């Protein structure tokens, strides 16, 4: 108890006893105590003067915060679709056998906890897992067991990288502060993000201009948000700037959680200075003196490296009181860690999370540009978007607009995984045809491609000649390729499971509707669907899409809607019409078994039910 009080006090003090830093406080408490129990919740609540139910609400919201004791090593195995395609279930069996526990459990000696987790941004090197903060990519069942044995044999080793990382990945993954096994798999560098550049040239040009001129340049380049929504960046900044005077905020959204997306991870590894330069220019254009980099919890392994680079920028005068010696322009960046919640990639949920709240999206209006972080005008921009900005300033808006297509200028990073031979990151001009991309990545006779992750759409061969751009096949970057033998409905069901897990639960349609969509989809997959279920799914999906409060629920029915549209044959092959009043959806054998278990005897009329069918 005394220890809890001390550790909580230290954790709160670290964040300046600021209740808006509750997420940081709780991450610190967990780092010190292993988990956040009732006593710790009470202590945090008392010290920060927050109702304890609010602290408990935050702890229970984020997947990476735990209110129960966990092992010294928490193994989080990624259960995203590419991992399942690469045999993660065998890795799971191997781990369960080796540890003698099931998923969701901890070993009795307090050494290990085993959990499933959503996409960790390693789809090109699946199956992948996190061992605490350490990423273990390309994990096979044998290797998984071997690593567990090593960890068990060397409990004295605190830096798990020493045991888990056999070989460093390429590029900066081998940097002394990173030392990760992660690979960049950068297959194609384009002109904007991974092209050759003169560092800080864009920033220096921007500072020689007025903020309004910088915004005009970005608008002339017709830069649109790279996170998926495609909102014009310059307009977003203008709105935030038009708000009242006083503090404004710039937030870089590095909560890359859309399953199958991992391009920001490669930016954060190979082009972090371009991002920081872009954030600084955005801060100047907006009139923001402070920026936050919201880094998803899954990328915690990059945190020390990014902090190291930020310190270097401060020392070089690129951040601080007078950026590049420019009088009157102060700007600095703080890294805000996330804690395992996909919905926090939604900009208002991200702001809630930065404020130490549950990651619930906020009602709009007011929009973040009017009242965002801590009630102040805020612009939230995607990492890739911010990286385009210095290049636009350096090379000119005309150069940028000459790349890509008319309404979709510039290049786009694609994260490609699944059934293809060259998985990885590709920087391509916007407007490229899907077919060309599939050739680039070595996809042999694909039957389907998930464009834009589960919130995007699953397209079939009929759509392969469409363009990847904001107005046709829009994508935040994820492309998962499916070859012959994959079942589109099975994939859709996995994606619905993801949305059920990641819904914040604030609004009715998303909280309940996704569960109902998955129920009916699974019923069809089990061979108990009937033709009328297709209309049922269509109507239900439309209700969830129309009535949901934020982008999560407005897009979560897309796996169902796009498969109904593009893979209707897969549904039709599974459903069967009711015959003679029988309902295919009703599993009489299962219901009778349930009744028998409750009553302790078989039904007098139907027996076990097998002969009924």
């Amino acid at each position, binding site marked *: 108890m005394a220890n809890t009080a001390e550790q909580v006090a230290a954790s709160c003090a670290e964040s300046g006893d600021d209740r808006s830093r509750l997420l940081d406080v709780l991450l610190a408490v967990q780092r010190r105590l292993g988990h956040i129990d009732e006593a710790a919740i009470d202590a945090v609540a008392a010290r920060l003067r927050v109702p304890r139910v609010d602290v408990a609400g935050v702890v229970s919201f984020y997947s990476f915060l735990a209110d129960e004791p966990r092992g010294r090593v928490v193994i989080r195995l990624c259960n995203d679709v590419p991992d399942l395609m690469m045999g993660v279930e065998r890795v799971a069996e191997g781990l369960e056998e080796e540890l003698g526990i099931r998923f969701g459990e901890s070993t009795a000696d307090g050494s290990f906890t085993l959990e499933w987790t959503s996409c960790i941004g390693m789809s090109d090197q699946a199956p992948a897992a996190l061992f605490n903060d350490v990423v273990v990519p390309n994990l096979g069942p044998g290797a998984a067991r071997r690593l567990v044995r090593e960890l068990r044999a060397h409990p004295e080793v605190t830096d798990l990288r020493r045991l888990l990382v056999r070989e460093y990945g390429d590029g900066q993954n081998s940097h002394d502060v990173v030392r990760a096994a992660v690979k960049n798999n950068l297959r194609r560098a384009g002109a904007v993000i991974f092209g050759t550049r003169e560092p800080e040239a864009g920033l220096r040009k921007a500072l020689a201009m007025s903020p309004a001129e910088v915004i005009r340049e970005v608008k002339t380049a017709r830069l649109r948000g790279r996170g998926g929504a495609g909102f014009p960046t310059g307009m977003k900044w203008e709105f935030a700037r038009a708000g009242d005077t006083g503090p404004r905020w710039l937030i870089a959204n590095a909560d890359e959680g859309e399953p199958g997306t991992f391009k920001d991870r490669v930016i954060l590894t190979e082009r972090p200075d371009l991002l920081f330069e872009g954030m600084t220019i955005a801060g100047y254009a907006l009139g923001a003196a402070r920026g936050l980099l919201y880094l998803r919890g899954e990328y915690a392994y990059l945190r020390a490296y990014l902090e190291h680079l930020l310190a270097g920028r401060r020392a070089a005068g690129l951040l601080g009181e007078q950026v590049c010696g420019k009088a009157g322009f102060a700007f600095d960046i703080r890294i805000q860690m996330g804690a395992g919640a996909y919905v926090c990639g939604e900009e208002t949920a991200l702001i809630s999370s930065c404020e130490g709240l549950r990651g619930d999206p906020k009602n709009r209006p007011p929009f973040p540009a009017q009242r965002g972080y801590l009630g102040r005008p805020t612009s939230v921009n995607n990492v890739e978007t911010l990286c385009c900005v210095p290049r636009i300033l350096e090379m000119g808006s005309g150069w940028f607009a000459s790349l890509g297509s008319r309404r979709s200028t510039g290049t786009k990073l694609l994260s490609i995984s699944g059934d293809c031979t060259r998985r990885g990151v590709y920087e391509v001009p916007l407007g490229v045809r899907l077919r060309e991309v599939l050739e680039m990545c070595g996809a042999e006779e694909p039957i389907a491609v998930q464009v834009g992750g589960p919130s995007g759409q699953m397209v079939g061969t009929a759509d392969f000649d469409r363009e990847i751009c904001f107005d046709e096949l829009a994508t935040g970057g994820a492309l998962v390729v499916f070859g012959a033998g994959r079942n589109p409905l099975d994939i859709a069901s996995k994606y619905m499971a993801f949305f059920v897990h990641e819904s914040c639960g604030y*609004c009715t*349609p998303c*909280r*309940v509707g996704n569960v109902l969509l998955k129920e009916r989809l699974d019923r069809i997959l089990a061979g108990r669907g009937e033709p009328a279920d297709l209309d049922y799914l269509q109507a239900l999906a439309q209700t969830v899409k129309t*009535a949901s409060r934020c982008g999560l629920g407005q897009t979560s029915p897309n796996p169902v809607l796009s498969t109904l549209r593009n893979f209707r044959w897969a549904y039709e092959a599974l459903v069967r019409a009711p015959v003679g009043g029988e309902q295919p959806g009703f599993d009489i054998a299962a219901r009778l078994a349930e009744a028998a278990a409750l009553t302790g005897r078989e039904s007098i009329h139907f027996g076990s039910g097998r002969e009924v069918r």
Partner: protein
Amino acid sequence: MTSAPFTLSVDGRAIAAQPGQTILEAADAAGVYVPRLCWMKDLLPSGSCRVCTVRVNGRPQAACTQPAAAGMVVENDTEELRALRRDLIDMLFVEGNHFCMFCEKSGNCELQALAYRFGITAPKYPYLFPRRELDASHPEVLLDRNRCVMCARCLRASRALDGKAVFGFTGRGPAKRLAVNSATGLAGTDLAATDRAVAACPTGSLLVKQVGYAVPVGRRRFDHAPIGSDVAPAAGE
């Protein structure tokens, strides 16, 4: 922002609105009923139940959070939106464990009343039968999470009207639950039976003990006129 009244159109009818009003407030003042559940007078809207979804210039919006604006074209009582609201009410029934036939709140329950108004006799979605905890620890108030619809009215009323913080939420998605501000249950909080938070519950999730079934059938809140009749008489009346 202008301070002059303005007009907007709701289902083709021009209604007057004051600056600062939401669509729902303006509609109420004009005698147009927009169905709602999580909305409650004197509280900031939460926009969570989505029952008040309308189309504004074609785009779906929650009427309780969307500010009214001059010239807005609002669709409210359309076949599409009636179906959408029915679906949402259905969802609220199947995600909890509601048992109207012996619930003390029957006849005074806003969820039940909405179902009647929308002609729902049985939900079209399968029941999810969630496991939810009951908290009978408080001497005067019962909390039955089986009947909770996550409207946050108790949560908001406790904070905004009672000056307390008795309620909150834990978990997320389908695992989201109403929680109380104490590790020992409702008895460990400073809740009083007279708190506005208790009366704010639209269903039988928060009940004052020892006064059950005090109002006989025939004299309950919704026995004679459907919910919303205080704003506008329902069709067929």
